[in-house]
């Protein structure tokens, strides 16, 4: 595509102009080429505040065409206010279709979850990232952080896991668990629960991480090795709801969340839950 083509399409009324899309796609391609490496990009102003999914939104707008089908979830829920508004924003800007069914979506934007099923080689998962730097908790100096990533010097991360285990008897980090991608870079897995971590390993779908406030994009390409950082003798464990079942669909094999101040459990993924009820 030449510059003049881009200028012709510039006045299209879309949220992102073609120049911005091109820059974001280039950053995204670099991110796919170096799995787990955080690529800087020129984060644009979006009609949502930074910290409300502007990074994910920019990636979604840049990779979505009018023949795509878009699904947006918030905490696994297609019907949350945030999810509905972002979905409308994306479809009205790109002309794409919308869906709540994971297997129909070609692009799925999410903050807290990976859909329980339905993602395959034709799917792109876009995750909204609040803090892209996994080492932020152990080091604040940006140059030192860059050096640690460049030399794969993650000993301070291991020390923080050691300290967590010593202080609490278990490793307490529940969401955004640090993972080693492609045996090279440690990434922050954004606030997805531990439940979803094993599902990133060797996944058939492409996962793109966008941090709008911090202006970073990183990626886990399909069929990439993703290993949660854990000691050899301290096995990585996912959340256990102790035999609880969803009070709507009665299933126990999905990620369950409890209603506040009650013992009632529900599937976090509302689309998956609805399909279980439909097939019963």
């Amino acid at each position, binding site marked *: 595509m030449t510059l003049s083509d881009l200028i012709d399409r510039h006045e299209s009324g879309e949220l992102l102009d073609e120049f911005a899309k091109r820059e974001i796609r280039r950053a995204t391609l670099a991110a796919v080429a170096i799995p787990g490496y955080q690529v800087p990009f020129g984060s644009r102003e979006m009609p949502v505040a930074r910290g409300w999914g502007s990074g994910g939104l920019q990636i979604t707008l840049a990779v979505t065409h009018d023949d795509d089908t878009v699904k947006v979830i918030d905490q696994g829920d297609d019907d949350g206010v945030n999810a509905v508004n972002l979905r409308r924003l994306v479809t009205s800007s790109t002309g794409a279709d919308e869906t709540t069914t994971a297997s129909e979506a070609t692009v799925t934007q999410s903050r807290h979850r990976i859909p329980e099923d339905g993602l395959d080689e034709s799917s792109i998962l876009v995750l909204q990232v609040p803090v892209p730097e996994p080492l932020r908790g152990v080091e604040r100096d940006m140059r030192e952080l860059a050096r640690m990533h*460049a030399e794969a*010097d993650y000993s301070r991360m291991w020390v923080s896991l050691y*300290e967590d285990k*010593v*202080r609490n008897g278990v490793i307490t980090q529940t969401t955004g668990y640090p993972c080693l991608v492609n045996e090279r870079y440690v990434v922050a897995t954004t606030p997805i629960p531990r439940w979803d971590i094993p599902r990133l390993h060797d996944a058939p779908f492409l996962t793109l991480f966008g941090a709008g406030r911090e202006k970073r994009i990183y990626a886990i390409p399909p069929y990439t090795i993703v290993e949660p950082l854990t000691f050899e003798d301290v096995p990585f464990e996912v959340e256990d709801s102790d035999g609880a079942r969803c009070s709507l669909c009665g299933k126990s094999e999905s990620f369950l969340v409890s209603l506040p101040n009650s013992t009632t459990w529900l599937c976090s993924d509302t689309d998956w839950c609805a399909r279980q009820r439909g097939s019963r």
Partner: protein
Amino acid sequence: MNDTFTERRYDIARLAIPEWLLKVERLGKVYGPYDDEIIASTGSERDTAKSSINGSVVAAWDVSFEVAPGEALGIVGESGSGKTTVLRCLAGDFTPSTGSATIRLGSDDVNIFDVEPAQRRRLRVDTVSVVYQDPSEGLKMNVTAGGNIAEPLTAAGWRNFSKIRARASDLLARTEVPLNRMDDLVRAFSGGMRQRVQIAKALANSPSVVLFDEPTTGLDASVAAGVLDLIRSLLEEHRIAAVVVSHDFSVIEMLTSRCLVMHHGRIVESALTDQLLEDPHHPYTQRLVAAARA
């Protein structure tokens, strides 16, 4: 000053070395531009480290020595004499202006001034350790004693929690840190105990070279004596090549068999430690020893 006699004694000191493990040759560190004339305008005889020609500071120049396994070499001198500069160049904290420092790794000789920064840091993990005067430089204050030792271990590839715990408690026991303090933050420790934790951390990966920068200067006399005893027994036990920098002759006397005297960035005298203390030759050394004995 009797130059020939100093030279001869230097040779005796060299004869005492069986086989070097660390060899420093013509190490120099200059702040600012320099040439032969500027270097010549500084030093012990000129009584300044700062050149009157262009204001460059010659912090260390033409520093050469060798250290054998199981041996401790002392570097003594007053504040500003360049001894800490030499140590920090060896530690990798400062980049030297000239010279080489060779470490014998198995059958390979590696000039540590020559290697890539990443490899340099790697050497700091498992080959060259440093014990700083201020424990907060060598330790993370908001991390437990065990966690501080876990850092070099995980950097060297340890991934087993129980083995890391066992190694850390073993090291802390040997440096006489009570094991019931292992899971307390270093911030909560006394100065002497912090220094013991720092020594335990420095020994984590069984380094072949340990650099001590004024290891007991911040401690009161009784605590310092305990730490010195500890360092001496560890050096003997592990066959470590050690460089001990101090302005305090009692530290040098207790830990080292040979020592160098530095003044305005230059080595002015080099001898066996007991000889040097009994019979100092260079006027500056005489002044230092007299001051220490007073």
